[in-house]
């Protein structure tokens, strides 16, 4: 299972705690993680990535293993520790707005 940490607003929307788990078939990529999240929590469709372009929303960031993955391709493999369920995939609301 892939561990995912959601930002507070999306936790409230999905009515979940700070960390969720989703089942993602290999190869585990950010795009596949988002597919699994949206399948399990349809209310989050459109909040992390655009409905049409499927691109990450501008003020959403993806971190894992102390690395910013936001600008990596959505079909690039995530770090092995995330794929193994040892480290969480962090979805972050970007620091913006003062």
């Amino acid at each position, binding site marked *: 299972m892939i561990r995912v940490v959601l*930002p507070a*607003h999306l936790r409230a929307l999905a009515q979940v705690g700070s960390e969720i788990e989703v089942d993602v078939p290999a190869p585990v990529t950010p795009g596949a993680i988002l597919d699994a999240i949206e399948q399990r929590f349809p*209310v989050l*469709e459109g*909040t992390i990535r655009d*409905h*049409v372009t499927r691109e990450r929303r501008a*003020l959403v960031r993806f971190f894992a293993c102390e690395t910013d993955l936001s600008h990596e391709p959505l079909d690039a493999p995530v770090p092995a520790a995330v794929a193994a369920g040892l480290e969480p995939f962090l979805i972050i*609301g970007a620091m913006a707005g003062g």
Partner: protein
Amino acid sequence: MSRVRVLVGTRKGAFVMTADGRRDRWTIDGPLFGGWEVLHVKGSPADPDRIYASQHTGWFGQVVQRSDDGGRTWAPVGNRFVYEGEIGNHRWYDGTPRPWQFRRVWHFEPSATDPDVVYAGAEDAAIFRTVDGGATWEELPALRRHATSAEWQPGAGGLCLHTIVIDPADADRMLVAISAAGVFRTSDGGRSWQASNAGLLSDGIPNPDAEAGHCVHRLAMHPSRPDVVFMQKHWDVMRSDDGGRSWREVSGNLPSDFGFPIDVHAHEPDTVYVVPIRSDSEHYPPDGKLRVYRSRTGGDEWEALMNGLPQQHCYVNVLREAMAVDALDDCGIYFGTTGGQVFVSPDGGDHWLTIAEHLPPVLSVEVQTLP
């Protein structure tokens, strides 16, 4: 005794305020959706317990919330607002072409007869409709394909469709207002649209009486008289007597004809309310005195209403969506400010009471009159 329920959207959440018909003691619930911008909350005339809320942040985009129990509980419904067909361009602030991009919903207009049918006014300017209670939304694309749309340019708040007025006698007849494009009307349920700006004069555009491009801030209509429509424009208060086909100025003796909201008394179709502010560059009341102006003559002659409102050091604004009227025998007038105050006048504007203060900036105020 009848009750009222006031639905307030703010920059940081929504509030539901209730009172009995005296409207002097209020219960305030909220914030709902705390931390999110709530642009508009509006109930269905066909089922007052059905309420829709537009929730948005720049981080996570648009969410639509729906309540089926008068605002006690809420559940998200569909938030997929996708433009139909070829996207096309409008003008950006710098005059360059910019593709239409959905950003947020400014306004919900529920059907008078079916709680599952709601129109949504969006930024970038477009009108959407749901017929299944918000589960899915479909654009009425003819508006965005209007011959003038490539020239539409955003106002300071964005290229937003913020006002939808439906003729209560014929739901296929609608007026919409877009900043800064102007008014458009349909008589066939949105399959075709006509620019509806004859008589408007706007100094801020190259051709002051252009067919489109006017920064219309708000429209208001009394349901008994759908051909009479009042408008607060960027500058100028206007009136139409032919369903929006033509307009004439009725600013009369107002201290400033710049403002955002406009509304009509529930029982007196010629009694109209506006809140003048100094200018386009000074969004606060003249002389630091918060005053609603009332015309009992359908415009031109205006009187200041101030009893109970702050009369010194007041530098708030009242946004376009932040005024409403109830339908009690003594018509109540409500408005919210960018300073987080919500005021009510239970007697048509003669006296004002404070319902709430210190809220986040108020974006919208609606009121439901309940049995």
